[in-house]
């Protein structure tokens, strides 16, 4: 157990380092560096900037050192908790994110819960009732869930919410609660605003999960051990929930990390479209403004979440699948 955990942790660390390398590369990618940006902003204010001054800045911030050295420096300061400064917001990156990270986490987590809570049972049910109404409708909805871009779904839901419920979707509070102290009313108002983002973020994942679960279940249901279990006199549902479900859940759990990847991928767009005060709009703004210090840290946070998700899914698998525990070869 400990050896397994150790190996996984080391693997996660290696992946994280690789991620950070990619991120740093991207941060460096746009033409021009901090010194140029500084020069441009000074010039915008009407100051004249000499090339020498720019060069001094460059020297002072170590911008002309080799890539690897700069990377090490960047990583080192990140690890010390210094996330850098955002030009776009004129605030330290840490401050920009502190306000927004909790909401991003809450929405992503809620979407993940929805994906599994809805996707898995629906997948099981439509496999068992293959070629029945529920199965067909689940398949149909599944196709649409996969085919509709997240942002389009968000836009449609916003339109419908406005038209039918008079909800001022977008943001997380209705105008009347802005600046008000916390109350039950305000809390409910916030929850009602979070329904759409969570639904949107969860839609594609749920659709994919229903599909996978259904296919795996259909596969498992046709296996001899199901019939053998029925031959002991158990009722069909007892058998289904005890044996094939248990087997089919394994591949589902193993995709947890990947599912998180998808949710994280979709999160920025949903945040932008619904103008939520989460990391999404900040991310977009930082990208458009080429504020790479901020963008880089946000990317790193996204990746950290993915790595943690993968780690959790590995541990769950270890617990769920005796074959992994025993180190037996799997097909």
């Amino acid at each position, binding site marked *: 157990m400990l050896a397994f955990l150790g190996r996984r942790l080391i693997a996660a660390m290696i992946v994280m380092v690789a991620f950070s390398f990619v991120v740093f590369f991207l941060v460096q990618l746009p033409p021009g560096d901090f010194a140029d940006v500084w020069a441009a902003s000074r010039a915008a204010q009407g100051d004249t900037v000499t090339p020498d001054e720019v060069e001094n800045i460059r020297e002072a911030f170590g911008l002309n050192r080799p890539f690897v050295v700069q990377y090490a420096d960047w990583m080192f300061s990140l690890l010390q908790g210094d996330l850098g400064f955002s030009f776009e917001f004129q605030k330290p990156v840490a401050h920009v994110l502190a306000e927004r990270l909790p909401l991003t986490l809450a929405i992503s987590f809620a979407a993940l819960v929805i994906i599994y809570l809805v996707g898995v049972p629906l997948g099981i049910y439509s496999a068992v009732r293959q070629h029945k109404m529920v199965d067909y409708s689940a398949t149909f909805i599944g196709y649409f869930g996969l085919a509709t871009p997240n942002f389009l779904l968000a836009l449609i839901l916003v339109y419908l919410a406005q038209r039918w419920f008079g909800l001022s979707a977008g943001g997380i509070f209705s105008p009347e609660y802005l600046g008000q102290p916390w109350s039950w009313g305000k809390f409910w108002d916030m929850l009602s605003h979070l329904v759409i983002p969570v639904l949107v973020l969860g839609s594609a994942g749920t659709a994919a999960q229903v599909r996978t679960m259904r296919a795996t279940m259909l596969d498992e249901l046709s296996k001899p051990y199901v019939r053998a279990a029925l031959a002991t006199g158990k009722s069909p549902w007892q058998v289904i929930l005890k044996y094939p479900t248990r087997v089919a859940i394994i591949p589902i759990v193993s995709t947890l990390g990947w599912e998180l990847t998808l949710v994280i991928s979709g999160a920025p*767009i949903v945040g932008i479209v619904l103008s939520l005060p989460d990391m999404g709009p900040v991310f977009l703004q930082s990208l458009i403004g080429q504020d790479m210090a901020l963008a880089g840290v946000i990317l790193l946070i996204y990746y950290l979440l993915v790595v943690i998700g993968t780690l959790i899914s590995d541990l769950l698998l270890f617990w769920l699948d005796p074959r992994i525990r025993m180190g037996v070869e799997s097909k």
Partner: protein
Amino acid sequence: MTAAADLSRRQLAWRAFRSNRLAFLSLCLLVLLVFVSLFAEFFAPYTPQERNRAYTDGAPMGITFTNADGGLSLAPMVIARVTERDPDTLRRVTVADPGARWPIAFFARGESYSWFGLFESDIHFFGVGDGGYLHLFGTDRLGRDIFSRTLYAFRTSLSIGLASVVAAFVLGITVGGIAGYLGGIVDAAIMRVIEFLQSIPTLPLWLTVAAAVPREWTALQIYLVMTLILAMIGWTTLARRVRSRIIAMHSDEHVLAARLGGNRPVRVFRKHMLPAFTGYLIVDLTLAFSTIVLAETALSFLGLGLREPVVSLGVLMLPAQSIAAIILTPWYLIPGFFVVIVVLLLNFIGDGVRDAADPSSY
């Protein structure tokens, strides 16, 4: 019908595909859509940048078969619009004039266009005569016809998708083929890299890459970069599949038999492995294609992909980013449904091909 025994595997697969009504219908519809958008200049009543100043942010106009006096007519018409001043606000507004009709003419003259520089014409498939106008999907803030723009955008989105899929395919089949064929350390190394790439949340990554593209680049340069970026999104899955199939097929009895039969390696691959491959590859390609179309839309929608004056489905929806816009002008979303339709069609076709390529289905 010929007896199944005398048909080739390919004929059987085609027959199986055709008997899958949903997949076959999807293929027909896709072919139709591609055809129409390929000749967008002809089928669109307006050119993408043509402005109708009398009808900005205008709602979609329906086609009617009833005359102004309530009688039925065989020829399609639109209800005429008039522009008048709102008596209270004194602003100019355009309203329907139920008493007048603009007849729709086929092969009508409109703005002249050049089809890929090959021929020039001003004949459009349909249009309304002088003074009138027809905007099936409404117009945008500048009064440009969303229906016409959607046709052009559809072509752009499909073409960039196709180019990316081809690039992804070449990359995937090469890398996957090398990994599968060489095996050993090369294979292990390639697989680790692919696993790493697949574990990266793609969208934020490519958003970042796209954001790094210099602002002053031309539309064509951006188009090419976008193709590469989109190809990067799709190639890993393809590479993995190609590799696992090559490895599996290497010890297939009929492949071994082909080697014993004196076939040289290239011929073994071409004659004895590739045919069984094709079905699966088409499936993978359709799925990769749909992923890429979705990705392009998302990137362009955020303003980080293609940009005006190039119109893609994502670009068309860019103005729909603000919530106010959606509520006031929901028809901005119409191009989005074309994305949904293409992805659905591709998925249905992919499923159909998968079933048809599966030997146990007949």
